[in-house]
């Protein structure tokens, strides 16, 4: 298993490099001069040229890419054009907020999604099944930003139970976490259901029944563990969708996280900040995938023994 993990770890390196390359190329061929952007319109062309040279913007692209990777490895992602602070510092300030939001949303999605999926199998074709699956379908069909606004309208404006936005009390976390976690919960519930139903059709389930186990015991002891295999994979994809969703959720609820940094960076055309925040987020996704692979290998002995 150690070898399996190591292989996966090394396999992620080219992916990360590829991601960095794509982001770098996309952002560095952008039309429009970042220096001009930084300094507003009326500025001395000599100054512009000097700053350009200082920022090495005149070097060929591959030299700049090499320098960027080298600096990034040292934790240096450059300085934000707009905020004039090191990008790394800005990201590190924002990261805990995003992490908190993502973890809360993930917990919500697991604690709701998995039981809902199991319930719908146990009570197949009855009210609990339809209810769970309706909830799940709504989750995957609802635009996150709209759900956020709707909740704000109901719980903040109409009922006044929760703060509209901000990030200064635990109460502030409830709406964003639910909004963000709902679609993941829907995904997980639907997958748990279909995976469990498929597992229940396997020969070894029949063996377990023939052994005299009760239906509940068969479900708990024989079907669940197997049915979690695909669910674990989706939990990894979910990291990506949570982070995508976080961009919107953070914007709506004014949470100072990485997603909002990215949106602001786009609006301000702050290239170093955008670049670093996207790369950082992608790194999180890759780590999530890795974690899923390891989980998978723990759950499935057929991989462990390889």
């Amino acid at each position: 298993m150690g070898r399996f993990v190591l292989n996966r770890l090394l396999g992620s390196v080219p992916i990360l490099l590829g991601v960095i390359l794509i982001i770098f190329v996309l952002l560095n061929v952008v039309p429009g001069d970042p220096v001009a952007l930084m300094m507003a319109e009326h500025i001395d062309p000599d100054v512009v040229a000097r700053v350009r040279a200082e920022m090495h913007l005149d070097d060929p692209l591959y030299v700049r890419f090499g320098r960027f990777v080298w600096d990034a490895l040292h934790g240096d992602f450059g300085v934000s054009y707009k905020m004039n602070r090191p990008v790394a510092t800005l990201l590190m300030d924002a990261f805990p907020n995003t992490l908190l939001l993502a973890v809360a949303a993930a917990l919500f999605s697991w604690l709701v999604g998995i039981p809902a999926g199991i319930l719908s199998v146990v009570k197949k074709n009855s009210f609990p099944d339809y209810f769970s699956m309706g909830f799940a379908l709504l989750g995957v069909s609802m635009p996150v930003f709209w759900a956020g606004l709707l909740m704000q309208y109901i719980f903040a404006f109409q009922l006044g139970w929760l703060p509209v936005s901000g990030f200064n009390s635990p109460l502030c976390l409830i709406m964003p976490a639910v909004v963000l976690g709902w679609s993941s919960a829907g995904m997980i519930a639907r997958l748990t259901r279909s995976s469990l139903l498929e597992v229940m059709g396997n020969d070894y389930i029949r063996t377990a029944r023939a052994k005299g186990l009760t239906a509940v015991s068969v479900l708990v002891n024989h079907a669940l563990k197997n049915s979690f295999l695909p669910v674990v994979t989706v939990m990894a994809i979910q990291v990506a969708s949570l982070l995508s969703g976080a961009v919107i959720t953070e914007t709506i609820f004014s949470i100072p996280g990485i997603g909002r940094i990215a949106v602001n960076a786009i609006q301000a055309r702050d290239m170093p900040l955008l670049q670093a925040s996207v790369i950082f987020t992608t790194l999180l996704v890759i780590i999530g995938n890795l974690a899923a692979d390891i989980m998978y290998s723990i759950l499935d002995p057929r991989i462990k023994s390889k």
Partner: protein
Amino acid sequence: MEPKADMPSGPPGVPARKEKEPVTESFWRELLYSIKQNRSASLGGIGLLLFVAAAIFAPYISPHDPYLVNLNAQFHRPSPEYPLGTDMYGRDILSRIIHGSRISLVIGLVPTAISMAIGTILGLLAGFYGGRTDSAIMRSADIVMAFPSLLLAMVVMYTLGASLLNIFIALSLVGWAGIARVVRAQTLSLKEKEFIEAARAIGVKNRVVIARHLFPNCVPSLLVLFTLGIPGAILSEASLSFLGVGAQPPTPSWGLMVSTGKEFLSVAPWVAITPGIAILLVVLAFNFLGDGLRDALDPYMKH
């Protein structure tokens, strides 16, 4: 290598070799039949038809001009005159939603179709040829899949500028990887089938094997992926427009309408809420249809 002797006795619970009964001859006719049989699929299908009809006949069924600014009619509550109310410029929200369906329809269909085409071709090639072709294609897919898709689309929009056309490009660039993965996996399992070996024994050329034997057997899964991919694209466009990096005012994009309405949530909630309901209903319709199709096509997708 050696196939295990596969013995005739059918699996218990599946009496008398449960084949698909020879009711109809063609796959497509059978598909239509299955959709009619399946409640959620027909529901989704009907919703879908309404949506398409709204998009096609938008100019004829809209009660007002969606772009007409009327500062005397700001923030009208829903009324017979304005069934869904008006926004801050006094524009009729219903008319804007009806016209917005055109954007959603096109944005749902075109990028999904493009990324399906790219993903299918690459997936077939990767699965069929294996080796380096496979590694190159699948590593690229891994890289694309590692991006949170919305962020990648945002970066593309940053580079190319915010416009509907660029959303096409951004969504097509992002969507193919997932399709390629599924198609490749299916190709790999189909490749094990003896009918592929039979074609090779006959001397059928590789590209014919791909076109005639592999691709048609991927079609059922592709149909489901397509149906479920469209709402994804619609949601992505809405999200990008909501964030201000998609469609630009005064385009009646549903996402953009929610975004402009959010400032007035406490005074005129309908401005933001109603376009969201439109998105929800359309996405639900596609999901219903996709789920129904998946159930109906299940026997065709098991390889």
